[in-house]
């Protein structure tokens, strides 16, 4: 049975985190500082030190995961601890601040830290959910084999379409030109393959010609594939309609493959996108934390 980073070593780091959490809250409740609770009491300094060390250690995870030769604990153990201790950090920082916020460097550090942690929560969600979805979506294929199959289908579809009608050949050609897998960040995250767009345009053309040449029924609501069948089956012989059915099978298969590849890209992108927030902001946090510590002792 695969062991998740959340259940690593019988949830060892969950327990460590819980002890830290309960200990911090208990100390905060018990502590009776001069004035209101803040970072400048002995408990404030203690929690602040724990928090700062945690932040530095959590940042080191970025280095640890790159050094494969490192033998200091397994990477899964590190990730498990990273997740649990990172979560507790949120509470420790809150208690450290005594729930005081303002328009200052200190709250900036807190906000950066919070965004980093929350983006990390999404990361945990993504790592738990998307690998399963990806496996299911790929159906034992890899992305490359799906792409190869699409290329093969494109060739076959062109040949088949050419045998039926030159106009159909054009539509298929257009569809191939317009099928776009990948693209900008937004496109990657929203699983667009554009095959629908191409079919949409083809349908428009079919409609226009249908109106001009025949009294074909309105096909606005009709899926493109059926529109094609509807239009082209008029006045074509049995052999052609056999080829047409084959073509439609091919195009459907292509559409499903393109959708799956787009989904695959989407899942992979979703698994990565949070890192583009998590990593830069955590480095920004390092600067803000440094400033926080310097400023606090500069004006002691």
């Amino acid at each position: 049975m695969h062991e998740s980073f959340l259940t690593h070593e019988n949830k060892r780091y969950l327990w460590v985190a819980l002890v830290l959490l309960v200990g911090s809250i208990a100390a905060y409740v018990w502590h009776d500082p001069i004035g209101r609770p803040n970072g400048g009491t002995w408990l404030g300094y203690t929690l602040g030190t724990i928090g700062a060390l945690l932040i530095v250690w959590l940042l080191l995870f970025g280095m640890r995961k790159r050094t494969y030769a490192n033998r200091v604990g397994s990477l899964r153990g590190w990730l498990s601890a990273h997740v649990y201790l990172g979560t507790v950090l949120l509470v420790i920082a809150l208690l450290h601040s005594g729930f005081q916020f303002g328009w200052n460097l200190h709250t900036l550090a807190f906000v950066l830290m919070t965004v980093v942690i929350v983006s990390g929560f999404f990361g945990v969600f993504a790592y738990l959910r998307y690998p399963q979805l990806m496996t299911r979506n790929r159906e034992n294929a890899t992305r490359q084999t799906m792409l190869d199959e699409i290329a093969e289908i494109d060739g076959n579809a062109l040949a088949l379409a050419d045998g039926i009608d030159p106009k159909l050949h054009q539509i298929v050609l257009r569809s191939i030109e317009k099928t776009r897998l990948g693209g900008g960040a937004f496109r990657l995250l929203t699983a667009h393959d554009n095959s629908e767009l191409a079919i949409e345009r083809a349908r428009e053309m079919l409609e226009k010609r249908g109106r001009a040449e025949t009294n074909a029924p309105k096909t606005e609501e009709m899926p493109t594939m059926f529109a094609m069948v509807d239009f082209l089956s008029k006045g074509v012989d049995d052999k052609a309609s056999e080829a047409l059915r084959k073509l439609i099978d091919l195009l459907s298969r292509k559409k499903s493959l393109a959708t799956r590849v787009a989904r695959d890209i989407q899942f992979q992108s979703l698994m990565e996108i949070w890192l583009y927030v998590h990593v830069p902001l955590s480095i920004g946090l390092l600067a803000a934390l440094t400033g926080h510590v310097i400023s606090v002792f500069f004006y002691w």
Partner: protein
Amino acid sequence: MRWLIRRVLKRGKGSVSYEDDTHYGDVLTIGRGSDQAIFVPDMRVALEHARITAVASGKYKVESLILAGIRVNNELTYATTVGPGAMVEIGTTRIQLLEPPVDYEAGAEISTIDKAEIAAGVKAKALPTSLSQTWLAKRTPSWVLFFAIALLFIVLPMLAHYSPGFRETLNATPVVPHQTAWQAGELASAHHFFGENCGACHEAAFKWVRDTSCGVCHGNTPAHADPVRFNLPELGEARCAHCHRDHNGQKGLIRDDQVLCDDCHKDLKTRSGGASALADVADFGTAHPEFNVNLPAWTPDGVFAPKRTVLAQGLEEQSGLKFPHDVHLDPEGLNTPDGVRRLECESCHVADAGGAIMKPVDFETMCQDCHRLDFDVREPNRQVPHGKVPEVIYMLDEFYARRALEGGYNDTTAPTVVQIRRRPGQILSQQEQVEALAWARSRARTIGESLFTGRACTTCHAVSPGRNPGEPWQIAPVRVAGIWYAKAHFTHAAHDTTVDTMTCESCHAARESKVATDLLIPGVENCRQCHGGESAKNLVPTTCIQCHKYHEHEALILSELQARAKAPAAAATPQTP
């Protein structure tokens, strides 16, 4: 129009040969159909895919005839006008449009794109399929963010600390963070006016705020106790900032918690090695000693010198007055010249403007209506002044001298010259004057004696013979209203007696008091009806600071302490307690 169609044929091993052909017409058609001017046998090409029209010498219009479009100069297009050198690509065929050769109006060179180039093209045109291939990045934003924060939030405020000029520039600059970005919390309201100048308190970097910084404004604040006399580390070593922690909100600077005081005062006698005579005290609800009150007392010279005395059962007050509260507060009312009148506490006891203590009782407005100071039945409206013995004597002397000299004083015991009415212009002989004035002096003395020792003054005051001839009588000094709790700041204003829940009698048992020596000042148990200790639940939580001050030394001020700290030799000679 004549087109030069030049086909580039690759012969292998890099050798190339050309095959020229001439095409007549304005339009060059391209497609997979056999009727096309340029025949491209490629499945990805439509039968009639595109056409190129030579519009002018060296100008070509390229049009796609199908929706798939055509790639001109690597851009997918439907129709465009281009010049010589433009590349048109269809499938694996490349058509380069030429500057019209000699004898031709247009020209095109047709070649096949080789497999390596196609593969490279496919790779170059491939869209990103992972986020790392898009504009998104981690490294650059990380560095930008790191250095932006370091510059804006570390470097700028630090520079502002070392350069006042730069600080002013920075403060005047919008958007960028000021030095206040380092403020860990809002300053106390009193410190806001110099809030943008951190160095006002934080003089040196990486050092605690020094007391001398506080002393710039607060040097005249009284000290708490003399650390030389009371050898307590809490006194000698405490910094101002130990208690006064700024950046904790507008009101966060003043401590009012119990531990501020009771960490020393709960066992002060032991801690101070007997140097302190103060009673040990901790929680108001459970561990506060009985109050001390300032009982009125006077030195033999008549100077007011109150005696601080612990409140106790049977303790008497010597206010210098005779006054039964119960008689005056008779619920049936009092018979006064203006009819029956009911007196209330506030008829005589009125708070001063600040509301803390009561104003002195005013004889003229509060007592004289009933306790008249008239002295002569023939002139009942004339009264002697209150409170000034010599003036009473003068007034009586003058009053009777005038009556004697004017004559017509209707008193059979008086000499004839006093009783007889004068005629206009009548002048008394010298002997008559002597006789009349002798009567007047004697009369004034008799009346004075009766006022001071009989019917008027002694009603309320103790009267004794005077020490000099000008003042034959002496009135004992009086103190009715004043400060009773000298070391606490009780205020009547905070205890509204105009409501039903709290009346004067809730604290002062005046209605039952028969004599003025009854001390009507309440003790600690009276306060505890409403006030509890710091953590009281059903009572008003009350800490030391609500009644007492911390900085209340009568002689020593903070700047003196600081001066002593600078010159430790002076402090080395301990004063005798």
